[in-house]
């Protein structure tokens, strides 16, 4: 009975180890390839393929005179393959995504790059873990002299329960509390301990192998994790690991003025938030300035300008709006940012309002759609600037159902302003989001290109016209009056054809098409 319990516990722990590898794997790849559906598919696909090969390998190994000994070796092999994953991830990804790759170029290599990296990193460990099940079934059946189905069912049940624990444990405890390095090391340590214990029961001759495997796992403690790469001319102020991504703040000095950027993951040539020493407009190339435009187009000139920023980041939108609103309008801001570390860094380095500051409320660690739905209505403006890994639009923030939540949160005449990463107004992503917003707002929306950038601003308005094109007023700041009459920079969309919905939202495919379209234009 005790030996049966020990065997099933071993199988359960191996199952947990499999899920630790699989779930932490995507997070390990995210700095280079993001965490989109394509990356998840590649990781899961590689793990499943490896498990299939591992199952057959285990079946072949189970014919040996002493399957318990082979089970020990397989566990040690899995431990060695798991321990070094955090340290070889960077050089492996660099094989397919070399230094100096720009953000838009990197985005085109997600599919093949993440698949190749997954094969090299995760296939060996998953293959070894796949062999555990058949060997354990053989051991169980020989010991208890029961039929194969009985042994198989018990082992599968134990493995699945272990996988369940590993799934929840990885996401809610291991990665946020331990970080990736210690998460993989813990899994490798447990597998190594199981392997050594199994070999100990199998015979003295295998103990040397166990010791060697333990040495391989423990040697990772001597390796320093690679420091975050910072481009020339930038000074690293701080780097942290959040539950969602790695984040850092860098600084540069331009004409005697300090600029800071908050970058996530590898950053490439982009940023998540920006701070300028002098408050106000940031200047050409920065889309944040365009968040202020609706206030200048609106009829109101005094009182509180109530905004909700979904994707607040470190507060760049607020910093720009605070000192550029027209007349006597004063910003009254609600900001939602899913990553609490980003908020913390914003408060420390980018003058993001402290908790409890009047007229500034930050909901950190919260989802934007849920917060907006619960926030009550009457907003003058909702700003949408939520991206995962800098380029990935969260699917649930790009559907007609979400835009209806936005519309209902606005007062009559209130504005939606959305930052869309797109090459121009005809971009597949910009086009789809415009049609979706038009369907939700039941009226025309405008796409406005941001000069010197790969950004397009989407403007929608509840139950009121948007004065652009020929209707734009004179005297707007920032050159807006001329820009909004410049036809190549604008596109009016009034179409509810095929909006993106919660049920059907191919935003990943559209983003891929956007990059492919840009790539084709280059050739």
């Amino acid at each position, binding site marked *: 009975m005790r030996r049966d319990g020990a065997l099933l516990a071993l199988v359960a722990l191996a199952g947990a180890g499999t899920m630790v590898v699989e779930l932490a794997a995507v997070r390990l790849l995210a700095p280079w390839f993001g965490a989109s559906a394509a990356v998840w598919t590649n990781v899961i696909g590689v793990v499943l*393929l*490896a498990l*299939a*090969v591992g199952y*057959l*390998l285990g*079946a*072949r190994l189970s*014919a040996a005179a002493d399957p318990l000994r082979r089970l020990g070796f397989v566990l040690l092999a899995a431990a060695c393959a798991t321990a070094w994953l955090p340290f070889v991830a960077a050089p492996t990804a660099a*094989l*397919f*995504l*070399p230094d*100096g*790759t*720009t953000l*838009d*170029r*990197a985005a*085109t*290599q997600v599919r*093949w*790059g993440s*698949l*190749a*990296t997954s*094969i*090299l990193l995760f*296939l060996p460990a998953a293959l070894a873990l796949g062999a555990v099940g058949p060997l354990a079934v053989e051991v169980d059946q020989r010991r208890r002299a029961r039929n194969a189905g009985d042994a198989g069912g018990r082992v599968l049940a134990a493995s699945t329960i272990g996988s369940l624990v590993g799934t929840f444990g990885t996401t809610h405890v291991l990665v946020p509390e331990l970080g990736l390095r210690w998460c993989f090391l813990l899994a490798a340590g447990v597998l190594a301990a199981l392997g050594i214990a199994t070999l100990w029961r199998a015979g003295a001759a295998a103990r040397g192998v166990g010791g060697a495997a333990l040495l391989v796992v423990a040697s990772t403690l001597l390796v320093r994790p690679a420091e975050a790469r910072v481009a020339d001319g930038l000074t690293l102020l701080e780097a942290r690991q959040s539950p969602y991504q790695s984040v850092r703040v860098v600084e540069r000095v331009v004409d005697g003025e300090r600029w800071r950027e908050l970058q996530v993951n590898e950053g490439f040539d982009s940023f998540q938030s920006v701070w300028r020493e002098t408050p106000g407009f940031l200047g*050409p*190339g920065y889309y944040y300035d365009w968040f202020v435009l609706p206030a200048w187009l609106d009829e109101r000139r005094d009182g509180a300008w109530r905004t909700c920023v979904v994707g607040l980041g470190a507060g760049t939108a607020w910093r720009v709006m605070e000192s550029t609103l027209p007349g006597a309008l004063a910003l009254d801001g609600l900001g939602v940012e899913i990553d609490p570390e980003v908020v913390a860094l914003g408060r420390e380095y980018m003058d993001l309002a402290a908790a409890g500051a009047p007229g500034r409320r930050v909901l950190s660690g919260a989802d934007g759609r849920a917060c907006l739905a619960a926030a009550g209505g009457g907003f003058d403006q909702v700003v949408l600037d939520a991206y995962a890994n800098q380029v990935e639009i969260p699917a649930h923030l790009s559907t007609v159902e979400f835009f209806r939540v936005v519309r209902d949160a606005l007062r009559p005449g209130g504005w939606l302003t959305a930052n869309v990463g797109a*090459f*121009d107004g005809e971009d597949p992503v910009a086009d789809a989001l415009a049609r979706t917003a038009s369907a939700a707002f039941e009226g025309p929306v405008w796409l406005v*290109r*941001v*000069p*010197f*950038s790969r950004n397009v601003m989407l403007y929608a308005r509840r139950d009121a016209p948007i004065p652009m094109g020929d209707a734009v007023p004179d005297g707007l700041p920032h*050159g807006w009056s*001329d*820009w909004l*009459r*410049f*036809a*190549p*920079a604008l596109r009016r969309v009034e179409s509810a054809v095929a909006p993106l919905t919660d049920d059907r939202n191919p935003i990943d495919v559209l983003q891929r098409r956007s990059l492919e379209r840009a790539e084709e*234009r*280059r*050739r």
Partner: protein
Amino acid sequence: MLVALAGGAASSHASTRQDAFARSLEHTAAGDYAAALESVSAEGVGALPRARARLWAFHHAGLLDEALAEAEAALALEEDAWLRERAVELSVALHDAPAARRHLTALESAEDAERASVAWAGPVGELVERDEAARRGERRARWVVGIGALLCGVALAALARGRR
């Protein structure tokens, strides 16, 4: 230099062309890009001055793709060193390595463009190298995927056959 490239003013026709070109530049400097394009849209403005003025407007407006398209459309009809150099500059800004290399090669064989071609050789070379490295990375990834899938397939087939 951009104004000088608009051509001389020996006749009233040329004077009209020069006025339209100068007006376009003034509108661009003032940020009124719609008026800048309108100024050179009339008949009588030569193709090259029109292309230069439109490129200048789009470039200053920050619509670099359109600026490059203006240059390439005009260069397809007639070679012009200034337009060619702007095409190199815009290609580099847009991280378009194939276009940058193509335009630099053409610039190197243009008359009176030696200084410009030497100045742009470095940035274009770096861009091309980075692009090539990225493409090599993608090819490498496809090879790894292909070989990995093949090995897994062979392993599956061999293991599934069972012992003889």
